[in-house]
């Protein structure tokens, strides 16, 4: 059979970081091809290259045997490639039909007017084999996510896509909606459309795919036929690498600092219960979207829990970030730019926000004391350059992160909540942040580290909680912390 798509030797680096290293992939007509790998393995980069969102450094792409250049999303669409993003890209205020014909409106009256009626008729025809229950005149924001996904697929068919890439299409679908998607995919493949299917869920991959390409650290590690290969082998191939248990030192004590019982928020976090001890570093592992960040935000009081309790040193703190800070909790958020720093303000100003009481007297900020104290805190976290009067936005990502960590040293913070502490930070600064975490633990502070990077979790944690679909699926003690153990409990069966 002819190859529908042939990617060969595709490489891409962002600055010094090689995110894709000579990856190849072939796709047959009517095939559902799984694309698997851990967070950060390079799946999204590969899809983005295919869809013209970013350009490759080297390698070739051929469709139906003919080499093509994809320089823009428009080129990709013209080549018959469509992508169903995890975050659906639709205009919620427009109708189903309008979204399907977005950017390619059917016209009449000599091209002056949009022919709504023709669009609606055509949209109905496109949707008939997929889900005839969808009303083409309904606004997209009134549809459920599963229906919106099908509208997106209909839009791909309207553009006569022959290759559809689906990025985690089922992350917010119910089992019943998944069944509907399965039949839609079967309809598509019967028409010869090829699907690239990205998912962490092994049962789906094994149900739908005939082949799977497995990426790890930007490299192709295997292409396996799917029903024949055992699930365990697929997961091990994904996770793979052997890790030296690099110099982990534990300072954990028996004294419970933070106790969490049945903490719940909707379906994002369900019934989380655990205890955290002084000097302990508790890792939290799980897939992106499994509820790790949500748990951190609940603890820090940024979001409100719908149920459950927490206590710090035996006392129940109030709600809201201010009460939680007073109780001794400090969050170093995942999205540093959005949730962490006040970009234009000096480091000292960013440091003093949670600890204003300590830095002011008679209603005035003690600027001299603030600068002095910030300077010494920043020396402790090794901020470079060590100048607390400079705007925090002018520092590198790693140094911004150090400043935000240092902020919590200014208050009497006993529980540090690190959410992806080394995201977007270069290797050198990473090591410094690991050292800082160890130092905080040695001072008897209790620490939670959420991380998508397995080596990071393994390096810093005394104990690991694995979260799967909002629930704690496993608690691993130090000697049980391995990539395989984490992956087995993180990936939905």
């Amino acid at each position, binding site marked *: 059979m002819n190859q529908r798509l042939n990617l060969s030797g595709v490489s891409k680096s962002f600055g010094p970081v090689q995110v894709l290293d000579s990856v190849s992939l072939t796709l047959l007509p009517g095939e559902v091809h799984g694309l698997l790998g851990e967070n950060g393995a390079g799946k999204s980069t590969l899809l983005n290259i295919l869809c013209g969102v970013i350009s490759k450094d080297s390698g070739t792409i051929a469709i139906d045997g003919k080499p093509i250049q994809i320089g823009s999303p428009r080129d990709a669409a013209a080549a018959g490639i469509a992508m169903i993003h995890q975050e659906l890209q639709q205009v919620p205020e427009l109708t189903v039909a309008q979204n399907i014909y977005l950017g390619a409106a059917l016209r009449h009256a000599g091209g002056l007017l949009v022919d709504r009626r023709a669009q609606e008729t055509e949209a109905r025809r496109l949707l008939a084999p997929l889900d005839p229950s969808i009303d083409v005149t309904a606004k997209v924001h009134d549809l459920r996510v599963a229906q919106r996904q099908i509208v997106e697929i209909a839009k791909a068919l309207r553009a006569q896509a022959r290759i559809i890439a689906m990025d985690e299409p089922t992350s917010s679908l119910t089992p019943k909606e998944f069944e509907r998607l399965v039949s839609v995919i079967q309809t598509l493949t019967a028409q010869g459309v090829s699907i690239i299917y990205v998912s962490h869920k092994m049962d789906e991959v094994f149900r739908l795919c005939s082949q799977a390409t497995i990426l790890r650290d930007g490299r192709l590690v295997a292409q396996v036929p799917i029903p024949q290969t055992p699930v365990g082998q697929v997961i091990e191939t994904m996770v793979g690498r052997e890790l030296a248990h690099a110099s982990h030192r534990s300072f954990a004590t028996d004294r419970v600092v933070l106790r969490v019982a049945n903490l719940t928020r909707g379906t994002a976090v369900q019934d989380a219960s655990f205890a955290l001890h002084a000097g302990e570093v508790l890792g939290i592992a799980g897939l992106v979207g499994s509820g790790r960040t949500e748990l951190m935000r609940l603890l*820090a009081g*940024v979001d409100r829990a719908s149920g459950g309790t927490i206590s710090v040193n035996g006392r129940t703190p109030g709600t809201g*970030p*201010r009460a939680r*800070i007073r109780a001794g909790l400090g*969050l170093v*958020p995942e999205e540093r730019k*959005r*949730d*962490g*720093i*006040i*970009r*234009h*303000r*000096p480091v000292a*100003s*960013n440091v*003093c*926000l*949670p600890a*204003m009481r300590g*830095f*002011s007297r008679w*209603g*005035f*900020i003690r*600027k001299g004391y603030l600068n002095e104290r910030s300077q010494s805190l920043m020396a402790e976290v090794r901020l470079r350059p060590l100048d607390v009067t*400079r*705007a925090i936005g*002018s520092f590198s990502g790693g140094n911004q992160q150090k400043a935000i960590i240092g*902020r919590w040293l200014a208050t009497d913070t006993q529980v540090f909540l690190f959410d992806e502490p080394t995201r977007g930070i270069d290797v050198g600064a990473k090591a410094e942040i690991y050292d800082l975490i160890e130092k905080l633990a040695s001072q008897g502070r209790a620490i939670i580290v959420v991380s998508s990077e397995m080596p990071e979790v393994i390096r810093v944690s005394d104990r690991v909680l694995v979260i799967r679909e909002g629930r704690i699926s496993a608690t691993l003690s130090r000697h049980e912390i391995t990539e395989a153990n984490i992956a087995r409990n993180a990936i939905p069966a």
Partner: protein
Amino acid sequence: MTRFPLLSRIRFRDAGTLLGLILISGVFAAQSDVFLTQPNLINILQQSSINACIALGMTLVIISGGIDLSVGPIAALSAVLGAAMLVAGVPIPLAIAGALATGVACGFVNGALIAWGGLQPFIVTLGGLSLYRALALIYTGGQPIFGLPDGFRALTNGSLAGIPNPVIIVACLAIAAWIILNKTPLGEYFMAIGGNPEAARIAGVPVTLTKFAAYMISGLMAAVAALVLIGRLGAAEPTMGILWELDAIAAAAIGGASLMGGRGSIIGTLIGCIILGTLRNGLTLLNVQAFYQLLATGIIIIVAMLIDKATSGKQGG
């Protein structure tokens, strides 16, 4: 950076605004003999004082990431209520307190809708713009209130060492606003919630209180401006203060306040007010038609923003 303690406090952006003022003044000084005389300069300050008063509050609101379009009507409502009390024989300090409380109360309503109601500042204060004006008109039946007592008028018409009282009042308020912005936790909170509201909340900034403070200070400043104006005129009109909000926003923007929030300067705003005042004064001295004065004001605002855009990112913060 520099070893001159005073100079290092005048920030790069403020120096730019000051340079603009000097340039404009230079042009007028070359064209008119009267311009640089002491009475005329004092006149400019006096004419700028009402706008400066409003603009000080506006600057704090803008820095905190909001906007207050309702300052003119708040001034009108404070003016007519204060004037009514004065005419009815309420003791002067009490009447002044009543007018100021009216301004603060209007600011409280704005703050409540924005901080508790979660509504957009632009829309809330746009509603306030009509609401407070309507209250002032309804209360007075559209008629001005005449006959303010001389004791009250003396407060705004007097002068100290040759400087008119309104200028002194505004100078004191400016110092207070500068201290709030640069020396107190509240000022740090204004900058933080304007610069990044979500990060500020996570860092423990009392976001709700801070927003209330901004709009209540703005309301207070509008009431002060109202009192100064009715003292000077001897009457309170329910239609006073039309388009004050735009002059105040213009002055703050010329002075370096970012309408995105998080940045702005009290000194810059003051100079911005004086630039606008100087422009009107100078063009009048040169017998330029009022239509062209409006044109010049528009051009100055746009040029200031273009220079801002071109130099942003090159400044040291």
